[in-house]
């Protein structure tokens, strides 16, 4: 686990005892810097080009072409995508799917992780393997049966206008939850296993039941893991393209990640608007990245720290 403590300790060791070969002065890094700068520029070009295109009104690209700095720069494309392109709706749909899915996933995963890591019983490892394996499957393997299950699961029309579970947010949330639960259970159970057994011992002496051990002792201690996993899951589910594509049929119910593809057909050859749509879609993830970078990185490395 790449906690800040280990990285500072590592840096400190380097400062006090420089390796004889690498040298203490960063003088031999010119080549490295040139290489990294070239790579970094190449890395920024695709995103930079989208932002550049999005900021230029169609009128000025029509007049001066796409490869020109001439003409106006403004936010007209963003406003148009937000209002006429339906991005306000798509964005709200993303919120409706992402927030419940992340909360339910973390809650269920924490229950499961508690049961398999803090209580000793026969099927611990079997269940944990089952959960972890489920998360590694390509989603397309499950697509046909899940689609048919949703289609043949009849519900009143007052609940869903399709008369079944297709075209509902519930099925997208449920499948996302089931799919992400495996990974979260795996990470949380490793985290809980690392907590000392003494912690629940005292509670046990006091006669605290399983639920109180979970709720009052283990759960508060897992806050850092929840922060990391929560950030990661928000990004994962917000970025999910496939499940809404499979289940949602009305265009105005699609979340933003799946809907952006429709924009390609809707505004044929208006690349400025498409670029604005792409940039709008990036903004929430970029905000999360800037605010919660440490949590996100911790979440990604948590899952891989134990091999």
């Amino acid at each position, binding site marked *: 686990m*790449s906690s800040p403590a280990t990285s500072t300790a590592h*840096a400190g060791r*380097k400062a006090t*005892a420089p390796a004889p*070969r*690498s040298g203490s002065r*960063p003088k031999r*890094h010119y080549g490295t*810097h040139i290489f*990294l700068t070239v790579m970094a520029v190449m*890395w920024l*070009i*695709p*995103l930079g080009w*989208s932002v550049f295109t999005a900021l230029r009104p169609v009128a000025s690209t029509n007049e001066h072409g*796409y490869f020109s700095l001439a003409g106006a720069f403004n936010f007209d494309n963003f406003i148009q995508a937000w209002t006429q392109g339906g991005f306000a709706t798509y964005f709200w749909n993303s919120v409706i799917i992402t927030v419940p899915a992340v909360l339910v996933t973390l809650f269920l995963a924490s*229950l*499961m992780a*508690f*049961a398999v890591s*803090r*209580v*000793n*019983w026969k*099927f611990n490892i079997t*269940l*944990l393997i089952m*959960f*972890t394996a*489920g998360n*590694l*499957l*390509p*989603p*397309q*393997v*499950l*697509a*046909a*049966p*899940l689609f*048919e299950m949703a289609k*043949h699961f009849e519900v009143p029309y007052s609940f869903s206008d399709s008369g079944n579970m297709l075209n509902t947010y519930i099925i997208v949330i*449920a499948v996302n939850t*089931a799919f992400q*639960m495996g990974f979260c259970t795996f990470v949380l159970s490793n985290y809980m296993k690392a907590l000392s057994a003494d912690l629940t011992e005292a509670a*046990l002496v006091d006669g605290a039941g*399983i*639920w109180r051990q979970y709720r009052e002792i283990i759960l508060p201690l897992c806050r850092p893991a929840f922060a990391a996993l929560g950030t990661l899951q928000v990004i994962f589910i917000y*970025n999910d*393209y*496939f499940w809404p594509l499979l289940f949602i049929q009305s265009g105005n119910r699609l979340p933003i990640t799946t809907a952006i593809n429709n924009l390609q057909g809707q505004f044929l050859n208006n*690349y400025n608007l*498409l670029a604005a749509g792409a940039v709008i879609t*990036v903004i929430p993830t970029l905000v999360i*990245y800037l605010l919660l970078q440490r949590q*996100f990185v911790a979440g990604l490395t948590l899952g*891989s720290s*134990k*091999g």
Partner: protein
Amino acid sequence: MSSTARELIPPESREPEGAPGRTGRAKGGRVRRLSGRDKLVLSLMVGIPTLIELTLVWLPMLMSVGLSFTRWNGLDLGDIRPAGLDNYQFISQDYPPFWPAVQHNMLWLLFLALIATPLGLLLAVLLDQNIRGSKIYQSIFFAPVMLSLALIGIIWQLFYQRDNGLLNFLLGTAGTPQAVDWFGDSSVNIWAAMIAATWRHAGYVMLLYLAGLKGVDPSLKEAAAIDGANGYQTFFRVVFPAMRPINIVIVVITIIESLRAFDVVYVINRGTNGLEMLSALVIQNLVGEGQVIGVGSALAVVLLVISLVPIVFYLSRTFGKENKA
């Protein structure tokens, strides 16, 4: 659940002092039997997530296998007819996109394994040195990891377009007959798509290796240096083998990402015209008119069997030790 609930013994209760043990499993200690309420709570804690996982992941997986041996148009459950191995025979002999898709999946895997993953490792090794601006470089290389593969398809579409894309402008061919439609031309689009995927994959690999490199004991490097090893020898003979757990994760991620390469090709052209992928073929057979569930499921089973290789490898590495203990 009720029979298994009896096995639930909290590790906390295995303390040495107290009344003589009543179960054979406890090592000479008092075992506090779980109360009825605790059993109920634990059953629910395990039961609800397990039920969801079984219904929405494992049952569909088994149904995919089952449906691959049937003929069905997806409408009426009563119309499902057994078809033996017909679907498998069809996809391997009479379904033109199947073998290109298998080849593209292999190519995608090789590209990620031989280009994207080593590039990520190289970036991590360079950035792990104490160089100025390391954090800024890291943020830049890592940024695409935050984006969905679908969005990456769109962003690169803007870059790759024939007449108004930046790439052809930089090559000086934009607007001329020599201009290449990078995502549209079936002879190059798989390469263009793999480069777009590399943009994301390399950043991910870099991040994991940066964490791995921080975990390598610096005294190992120092010892190697004292023994007269040069930089390359130190890295390939000492540091890289010491990152074994991360290496396993990277191998698995690379294989699984190549099998999941769905979003990016589906956004570009739904996985046709040079971009056939197994995962996209599955979906092509399930949605739209003329649903052929049996054929789609047979393709899904091929995908499943291939993905079981890295999954079993990873699980045996991860849980093997615990099972023996």
